[in-house]
């Protein structure tokens, strides 16, 4: 019997989140860890957002999607274009409030740009989904790959239409507005949103598609609609993550969004355990830190060994733990809410044929304490 969270455990969750936020703020403002590592941690969280989206698409819906990087890129470029112009030409509204210095107009536009990036990714996902979501299994995988290539080529040549995107030379000049508080807020929102979605009837409908589509159909679930929904939401997440990424590294190059890069979130999801949010988050962190850690640990001149070692690690994990490190197990507030068993009127023998419960004729006992 799985141990389920009881309903009044929001306090430990809140404390945990405050702890994480507080630690990071403390550590960064005192420069206890270098800017470089702060950036690595932020990029791990950003990757986690994208991977959560892919976990919805692959882990919960069962779609083999190797095109997440395309939507990441769409979110990145869309938001970058908006903030590029606004930061140069938009009005400034500096505010000094309770010791916080910020520019209201820039901040507001940053949020709007992130939203626009996410929405653009979602819209494109919807449009490409119309023809492509009908495909099954491996064919969908191939089509998603193909779509990624198309988007990559478009990014590479986008400077013909929008010169500032600079195509293959890479877009520069994006304002560096992603900071730890924003990354934290969005990661937490993404996580809560996903958790709430999954533990609802909508989530159940989506998971049933992965389990057995025909059986879901005959239960009245419009599987086509929910497949599309999952795909769109997963891509929305990718778009949001892309926007945050763009404003962290301030430089965008199409090769960051080639189909090879779609393998990263996919490997992370499988590595963490497809169909589990906790596994996805943990794997995102582990993966990012392994890659960066190897960069630091390996002696000078051996940095390129990172990409030799990481696939070997992936191979080992798959050979020894094919379900991923955490499988579908969830921890903490990501666990579903516990539901008390309720006993109502029952039919003797016939219905409980084979089960080892004694008969109880007509007892109406909606018990709660178990």
């Amino acid at each position, binding site marked *: *019997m*799985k141990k*389920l969270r009881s309903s009044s455990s929001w306090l430990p969750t809140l404390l945990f989140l405050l702890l994480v936020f507080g630690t990071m703020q403390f550590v960064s403002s005192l420069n206890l860890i270098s800017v470089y590592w702060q950036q690595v941690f932020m990029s791990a969280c950003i990757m986690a957002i994208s991977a959560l989206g892919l976990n919805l698409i692959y882990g919960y819906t069962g779609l083999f999607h190797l095109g997440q990087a395309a939507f990441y890129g769409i979110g990145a470029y869309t938001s970058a274009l908006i903030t590029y112009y606004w930061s140069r030409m938009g009005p400034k509204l500096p505010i000094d409030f309770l010791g916080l210095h910020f520019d209201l107009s820039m901040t507001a536009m940053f949020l709007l740009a992130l939203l626009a990036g996410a929405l653009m990714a979602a819209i494109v996902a919807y449009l490409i989904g119309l023809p492509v979501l009908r495909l099954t299994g491996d064919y969908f995988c191939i089509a998603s790959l193909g779509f990624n290539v198309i988007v990559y080529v478009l990014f590479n040549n986008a400077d013909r239409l929008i010169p500032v995107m600079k195509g293959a030379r890479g877009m520069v000049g994006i304002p560096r507005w992603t900071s730890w508080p924003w990354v934290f807020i969005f990661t937490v929102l993404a996580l809560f*949103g996903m958790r*709430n*979605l999954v533990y*609802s*009837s*909508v*989530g*159940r*409908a989506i*998971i*049933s598609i*992965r*389990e*057995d589509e*025909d*059986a*879901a*159909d*005959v*239960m*009245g*679930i*419009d*599987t*086509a609609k929910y497949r599309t*929904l999952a795909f769109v939401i997963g891509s929305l997440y990718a778009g949001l993550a892309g926007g945050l990424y763009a404003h962290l590294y301030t430089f965008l190059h199409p090769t960051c969004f080639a189909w090879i890069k779609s393998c990263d979130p996919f490997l992370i999801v499988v590595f963490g355990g497809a*169909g589990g949010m906790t596994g996805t988050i943990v794997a995102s962190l582990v993966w990012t830190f392994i890659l960066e850690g190897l960069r630091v640990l390996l002696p000078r001149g051996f940095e390129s060994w990172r990409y030799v070692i990481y696939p070997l690690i992936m191979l080992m994990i798959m050979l020894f733990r094919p379900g991923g490190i955490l499988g*579908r197990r969830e921890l903490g507030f990501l666990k579903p809410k516990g*539901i008390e*068993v*309720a*006993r*109502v*009127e*029952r*039919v003797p*023998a*016939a*219905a*409980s*044929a*084979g*089960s080892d*419960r004694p008969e109880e004729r007509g007892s109406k006992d909606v018990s709660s304490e178990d």
Partner: protein
Amino acid sequence: MSVLKIKKLTKYFGGLRAVHDFDFSIDEGELVGLIGPNGAGKTTIFNMVSEIYPPTAGEIEFMGQSIVGLKPHQVAQLGIGRTFQKIRVFKGMSVLDNVRLAYHPHAGYSIKDAVLHNALFSKREKELTERAQEFLSIFGLEDKQDELCGSLPYGDQHRVEIARALATEPKLLMLDEPTSGMNPREALEMVDLIKFLRDKFKLTIFLIEHRMRVVMGVCERITVIDFGEIIARGEPAEIRNDPKVIEAYLGERMAKELAAA
């Protein structure tokens, strides 16, 4: 009143003729069986009624409305529930979730409500959970509500599948070999269960079954098909004495056993 009316239903898979000119009707409250040798086309007929595959020709009317060309989920929402021959519960979901899914079309809240987990969501979710739990209780599964279906014994999985189909509150319930995999005692208990369910939930039941004692014991009328075509129709007593049925399906020994029973 007629719940399901099928006229000249035909299905070709490429060049292979699976079902041919199948006529059938079932009225409210009836319990009718469909029997025949393996490969006769019984499940294909069920799949066509569920619109999992489209018929090649013929008409299917449910409650007076033609359902050919609808999508399977639309047919289900109109009120046709079914189980499958090979158990197809959602193994990666809990027992409770399997049954709660049945209420999805009437969940009563939107995606926005789900993501926000707001008051409307909580209220509706609680209601549908309680209704699902009532069903689980009927089947004795309430203590296993949080178990993953894949880890349950076969018999329990079967019960979940039936509970799930019932939870969709269908007007017509199509059961595809509900006793498969059960031992004879369990199979006879299933007979009682089917009758009980029919009476309690005012269902119309259309049944595919191989176990002749079950069929004879529970069905009011039986249709027999072989190679996709109807070879006999009528009440159990007529069917078990029908020479065509004996030759194609029952065999002499079974016929004698049933006559003696």
